[in-house]
């Protein structure tokens, strides 16, 4: 019962299509699992199912406290980055520094580039101190420096007993177990 995320015989249907059928998996502290698959194969839906934002048609999902980073920024566009992020709480300053956006703290969110916003959502995940990270396409818009910083953050998180579930069609830094959702575009 140390698993941070457990799927028991889970089926998920979206828009009449069965995306996942009878899936069972377990994510323990220190583990990282990548969901790969083509566009439209249901990677994001699986992440949202793990987060509890979607409900499974069948089966059970157990989850610990978690944090999610996806393409939705969820930051007030008119506010400075640090103020917008502080709404969500957590240990913000080290996270901003780790993702190399501490110097942007005073810049309004609407002026940031998509790569900077991606770093901000990843920093929010790290700041949350949640043991389970759910990352939906974490490499989108990240440059090589951002890639390095994410790699360091992931290593630190896993070394500290955290687990990661990430959806990406690209190779992620570090060693990952992989689930391929396969075909269907």
């Amino acid at each position, binding site marked *: 019962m140390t698993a941070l995320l457990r799927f028991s015989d889970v089926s998920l249907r979206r828009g009449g299509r069965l995306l996942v059928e009878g899936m069972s998996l377990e994510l323990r502290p220190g583990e990282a699992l990548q969901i790969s698959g083509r566009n439209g194969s249901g990677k994001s839906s699986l992440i*949202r199912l793990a987060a509890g*934002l979607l409900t499974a048609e069948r089966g059970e999902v157990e989850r610990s406290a*978690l944090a*999610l980073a*996806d393409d939705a*920024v*969820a930051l*007030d566009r008119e506010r400075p980055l640090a103020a917008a992020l502080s709404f969500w*709480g957590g240990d913000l300053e080290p996270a901003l520094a780790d993702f190399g956006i501490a110097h942007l703290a005073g810049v309004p969110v609407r002026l940031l580039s998509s790569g900077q916003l991606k770093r901000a959502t990843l920093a929010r995940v790290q700041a949350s101190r949640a043991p389970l990270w759910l990352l939906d396409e974490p490499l989108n818009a990240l440059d090589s420096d951002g890639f390095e910083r994410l790699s360091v953050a992931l290593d630190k998180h896993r070394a500290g007993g955290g687990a990661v579930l990430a959806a990406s069609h690209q190779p992620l830094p570090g060693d990952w177990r992989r689930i391929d959702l396969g075909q269907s575009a």
Partner: protein
Amino acid sequence: MIHALIARDARRALAGHAWLPIAFFALVVALMPFAVGPDARLLARIGPGVLWVAALTAALLPIERLIEPDRADGVLDQLTLRGIADESVAVAKIVAHWLTFGPLLLVAAIPGAALLGMDGGALLRAELALAIGTVALAALAVAVAAVTASLPRAGALAGLLLLPLAVPLLIFGIADAPLLETAVALLLTAGAPFVAGAAIRAGRT
């Protein structure tokens, strides 16, 4: 977190869209003397009705800003992940919306009543009725905003949904029956968070 959400929503509204319905309300009221002519007795008689119709239409304006931006931007999802029920989010949004809609409208009704030649007693009765009514209008606006979030041309649809539900408020508000109006307002305000919460959940994809 709920307090932070109320404060955030109120701040965002006051920084922008909260002023639009108030300006619209004042404008509609100010048009009325031009529309019906300078007959002071007629104006005073229709005054409360004018204030109400102006308030009802003004209540429609902010609907598209209440839920949809936060849905599209993932704010509602992040709130859910922090263990906050969608119904609680709806309550926070109703409170924040009323705070930036009700009091401003009540203030704007004072010069409005003067333009319409309403006397002090009529103004007082209208203010009381609007004070009760705006609470229910704010709740209805949030519920309708949640139901229509993510739909194309949600604003027009929202008007068709909200106005019929607001008719009992209008009737009892105009009829000077504050108890009955309060009863209707309570019903609408108590039901709205559940409607909004269910709509937010159903809208998740």
